[in-house]
């Protein structure tokens, strides 16, 4: 149940800071583990972590915003990465990205849907150039995509979600 998830997440944050003895020099591993729980680093949670570690929230934010691996905005349940490395780019990954942006009403500045279902991001080489153009959905690799097959993939997910609801 949803409530349980939230309770559990906050409980985990408490466990994580305790596990690292509230040691400010362990900020990065702490943030990594916290991010696993929330899929991003919510402002309130960073403020709480700062309080626990007796650090200034400005410093915690500074660290979190420095590393590309930390997400400061909520991410969707499905994170779609479209490869924009050279091979994929040449084979038309741009069109796939535009198609998904259009379908989900997203853009480079607004990568996540309001219902927090999808995040679409262009990334550099996913290391699967043989399958270009490539996209991943929650790390699962889909190769030789076209705008149409990418849209179909999204439709499948939406259908599945609708079934579960």
């Amino acid at each position: 149940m949803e409530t349980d998830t939230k309770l559990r997440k906050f409980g985990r944050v408490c466990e994580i800071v305790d596990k690292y003895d509230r040691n400010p020099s362990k900020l990065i591993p702490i943030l990594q583990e916290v991010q696993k729980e929330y899929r991003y680093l919510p402002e309130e949670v960073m403020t709480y972590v700062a309080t626990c570690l007796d650090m200034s929230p400005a410093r915690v934010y500074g660290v979190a915003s420095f590393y590309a691996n930390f997400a400061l905005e909520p991410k969707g349940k499905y994170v779609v990465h479209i490869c924009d490395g050279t091979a994929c780019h040449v084979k038309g990954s741009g069109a796939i990205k535009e198609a998904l942006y259009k379908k989900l009403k997203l853009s480079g500045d607004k990568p996540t849907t309001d219902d927090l279902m999808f995040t679409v991001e262009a990334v550099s080489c996913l290391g699967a150039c043989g399958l270009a153009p490539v996209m991943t959905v929650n790390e699962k690799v889909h190769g030789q995509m076209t705008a149409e097959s990418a849209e179909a993939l999204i439709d499948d997910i939406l259908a599945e979600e609708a079934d579960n609801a």
Partner: protein
Amino acid sequence: MENKQTIIINGREVPFNGQKNLLEIIRSANIEMPTFCYHSELSVYGACRLCIVDIEGMGVVTSCSTAPKAGMVVRTHTDKLRKMRKIYMELLLANHHQSCTTCAKSSMCKLQDLAARMDVKEVRFQKTGCEKALDTSSPSLIRDPNKCILCGDCVRACDEIQGIGAIDFANRGASTTVVPAFEKDIKSVDCVYCGLCASVCPTGAIMPRPETEAVWDILHDETKTVVVQIAPAVRVAIGEMFGLEPGTISTGKMVAALKMLGFDKVFDTSFAADLTVLEETNEFLKRKEKNEKLPLFTSCCPAWVKYVEQSFSDILPHVSSCRSPQQMFGSVARETLPKTLDVKPEDLHIVSIMPCTAKKFEAKRPEFMKNDQPDVDAVITTQELGRMIKQAGIQFNQLTSESFDMPLGFKTGAGIIFGTTGGVSEAVLRYASEKLTGQKPDPDDIARVRAKDGLRVHTVKIGEAELKLAIVHGLKNICEIAEQVRDGQCDYDFIEVMACPGGCVTGAGQPVSHDDTAKELRARGLYNKDKDLQLHNSDDNPYLHRCYQQHLGDIGGHKAHELLHTKYSSRKRFDDVEFLISEEHHQERLGVNVCVGTSCYLRGSQKLLEDVMKHVKKQDLHEQVEVRATFCFETCDHGPTVRVGETVMKKATVETICEEMNRQLQVLV
């Protein structure tokens, strides 16, 4: 002399002795090295690279981060070094918003100064990044990130001297900025408005918020009577705006200039400082007699007051209830001047000239307003006054001295030395000692009080009584003592706190000085002024006693309390951060908000929160109850704080919370 060590700088032998880095030695040899990120009082950062030197066998290194070794052969201004520096300057300038003609820092700006010195005539690089928004949220400071050159001086000053860390670097690469947490505006975080960041900033990226336009408007309104008060530290620094040495006492010229600007009466905040001495000393002696709520902390520094409200509210009862001299002046002027000057209360305007940015914030505190009218209408800094004098075309240096108006312009030397660290303590000692023993305090004690260390502790004897004093400047130095007081582990009697390193003379509103000796010279100016005056004990101020007789009644009495004292309370460090632990906001559910702000956290609110969550789970109350964590209800001194529905519970325990929850749930059913 046998272990006298030397290095060779530009072919000449230079001795050194204890300097931490090459830069200091080079400067000691009268060679000016350009620097942006070096401050002798802060840690070494080594980012601007302007201080590069060429050392034989080592090549080009930054002198600020290189330790001296005897025999080093150093060159500071070779052709190569000059060219490299010029390129660094151009790179800095490329990303800097070059709006010098409209920048308030112009003529005091280090970037401008060094660019001219290095003879930078063009900038060959393209600007990267786009325009960033100004932060005008605070009453004290304006941040313009477009002018920031990322030297980090402000970040280190706030962290290392004030121990706050309200601003820090964020993001990376071309998007790097210096910002408050989560890129909020400065008003929403725990900044205390001391302005230290603005004083160390080499550019106009952080500046005191100007109020000169408001003051011009007031002055141009013919129907108003405008009076002005001047803080002690202003008179020893205003001259610097006109090329005079730091510490030059310019009181008379300043009074003349203010009259020329159109102020009707010119008064002295030092009068109110004398008033503070009487009120605060009596408050202190009463506490000492009853041995309660000791130590007593001074309350004249608004940055310190904000700090203690947001970070140590448990010790608020230890903070003197006295208003600061600025605010004492404000309330006494509002009370007495309409009659003395024969003006309608609503036609009286009160302006302050302060060395300080936090005073701007203080004047706007609701405690110091009556029916929406602030006691002090506008606060301008020494810098702003200098600019107004220039705008009016007044030839400051040519002016003939004029004197303050009476009665609120009369002071003793005790009211003057308030402007430097140790000054408040010394003023209190002078009064207390004469009051209790009829003797002046021991000169040795005074010498120790006048020392300059960031924290000095000293026991003085007054007659039979022993008093343990602590004098602190720089808020980082107060942290440990504040913790001891909170834990009941501190046996001091009296603690003077000023946020600015050196006291008000170095305030962020003072003229910008790149000269390390300026604060020393300004402090000396105040002590010299004290010597020049006839009286040195606040109690000898005849106008003060007349003021008590005519308006205030007894020292510490009823009327005095109403006008000269105040009450402070807990304040949150961050604006509205709340997070749900249960699901999305459900208005109809009973909200249980547990405070996890710093103070409550230290009192065990994490455990409390976990226990409440367990209880909710065990009793299966998810459908009725929504658990939230909140940062600070501003009742930190009675934490842990929990709000159940509309009921705020102080010193909450899991038992009392569950009881209250059940009670309210039953009512709901």
